[in-house]
């Protein structure tokens, strides 16, 4: 095996990690902030991909789909928030798990009714369709774009949470919601905003993933489990946890497939089981 081979596998792992990051960060922030477990997060991912597909077909522009789909999904999330999420907030995790599981079941069917059972094609923008030669290896340009986008999201979110007033409010609310409310933070608005933002990020991940994986109704359910593993391994509610979790899951999964093909698909679950045994709260939980 040559250096180019390992480098390519490294990029593959990184690319998967970045996708998982964009997807899981919304889930984990919503959890940390609102103490809300949202199993329907994957459904927003699939919805983002489908809406992106329709936008792409209507306008012909990938970039418009990339921006438009998250906005539309955020609008849907806003409606759902008003209709059910807000009142589920104090209902306990079990109730949240079940109600959002209900949303998962319904979401799949709604997407089947609107977009059908066939997997749909989603073309990468012409600019990124080819492959790039670097250091003697050939790598798809689009995947490099995914990596770059993920890194960008990482930095942007870090700046947002650590360097802005909004971020300070969010962190305060994660640590002590009551205290933050007493200090004049409109916690309910913050929750609403973060929930929509988290869903928009999931939709963004959906559009980004679509040119690689294509678009089909079950995609939300399939991605849900790796995302949950990221969140649990990383620790609920923290940006650091989402970064660590997605890198760990992305690399363990990719190199597990390469190095232990007979255990492919199992190593990620083993990682989760091991984490829960050794650090039941995950690596970097927001609250100790």
């Amino acid at each position: 095996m040559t250096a180019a081979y390992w480098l390519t596998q490294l990029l593959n792992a990184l690319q998967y990690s970045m996708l998982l990051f964009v997807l899981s960060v919304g889930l984990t922030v919503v959890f940390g902030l609102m103490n809300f477990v949202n199993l329907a997060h994957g459904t927003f991912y699939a919805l983002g991909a489908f809406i992106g597909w329709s936008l792409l077909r209507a306008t012909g522009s990938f970039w418009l789909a990339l921006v438009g789909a998250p906005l539309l999904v955020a609008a849907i999330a806003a409606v759902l928030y008003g209709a059910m999420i807000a009142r589920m907030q104090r209902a306990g995790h079990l109730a949240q798990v079940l109600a959002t599981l209900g949303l998962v079941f319904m979401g799949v069917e709604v997407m089947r009714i609107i977009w059908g059972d066939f997997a749909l094609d989603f073309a990468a923008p012409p600019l990124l369709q080819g492959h790039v030669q670097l250091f003697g290896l050939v790598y798809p340009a689009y995947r490099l774009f995914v990596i770059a986008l993920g890194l960008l999201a990482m930095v942007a979110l870090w700046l947002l949470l650590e360097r802005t007033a909004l971020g300070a409010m969010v962190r305060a609310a994660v640590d002590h919601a009551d205290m933050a409310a007493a200090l004049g933070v409109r916690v309910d608005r913050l929750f609403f905003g973060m929930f929509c933002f988290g869903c928009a990020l999931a939709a963004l991940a959906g559009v980004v993933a679509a040119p690689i994986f294509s678009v089909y109704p079950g995609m939300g359910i399939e991605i849900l489990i790796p995302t949950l593993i990221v969140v649990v391994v990383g620790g609920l509610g923290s940006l650091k946890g989402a970064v660590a979790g997605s890198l760990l899951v992305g690399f363990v999964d990719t190199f597990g497939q390469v190095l232990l093909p007979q255990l492919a698909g199992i190593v990620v679950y083993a990682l989760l089981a091991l984490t829960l045994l050794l650090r039941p709260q995950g690596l970097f939980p927001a609250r100790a």
Partner: protein
Amino acid sequence: MLRLFDPLRTLLALLLLLAGLWWARTGDYFGREILAEMAVFAIAAMGLDLLAGFPRLVSMGHGLFVGIGAYGYAVATALWGWSWPAAILLALALSALAGLLVGLATVRARDVFYIMATLAFGQMGYVWVVRSAELGGDDGLAGVPRPELAALGLDLGDSATFATLLVLLAAAVYLLLGRLLASGFGRTLVAIGQNERRVRALGIAPGPYRVAATTVSGTVAGFAGVLAAMHSMYVSPELFHWTWSGEVLTMAILGGVGSLVGPALGAAAVVWLKYAVSGWTEYWGLFLGLFLILAVWTGGQGLYGYLERLRAWLLRTLTRQEEADARGDRTGQTLRRSHRHRPGVAAGGEG
């Protein structure tokens, strides 16, 4: 504990049993098939209730135990040619062992982490079976026999006999679990679910009880798996899949966890719904999701919770007078009892 000593629970269980037996006699062929499926799911859901309803451990990986029970029986009979009693014993032993191991591995996990951990173990089992060529992989294993009971004059190949047997077995599991929950062990499980801190302060370490409960629950689920294998005469990896586990959990929740009879009712209702709805639309998941959300919204006490509320309302209307002057009597208790929170899912869901 309260719900376990409730006459409504016993009444409902009896009604379900009688309805099942009557249906097994008078239903058409397809109806009897559905009835057998209901009984299998009811056993699995009651086993899950032992965890989800009392010590409040919400398992999303019960498919693992069901699958192990089903495959244990299938492999022993179809591949190794064992006799059916030996195969059943093996299947139960394996699922008990799996329950013990999962219980030990998840003993520190709480809440969402427990859900994730069980989900992970279930999926590990699924991936492993799908990849295992000796177990038939994705295609599963065919040729699983039903027990030979000709000596007793029973032909289990006959769908009416088989469905009757399964309904009776479900009733037996119900009695067994009811007895277990009313024991010192069961009381401790209930206590752990309600206040773990106090349990520890009383000098009881919850860990071993959780492990024991998972073992028992896993064995019951494994038994459901054995019956599923006999019913289909075929096993496939889907039994292990997390959506299957989610379906059993949905049944338990829709029926009302913490009442033992609720999950059985939920199993019957969901299986019936599935066939009824899939008769006229292929989008039956839409309804399953809708009912799940409604069940959680209305307090998470499920169908059994509605029955309790109905009874409370009836009693209130009928005995308004007595209640006014005798606050401490039985009726008053029953009334107030039904307003409390249940070992349901939506702590605070009712506001």
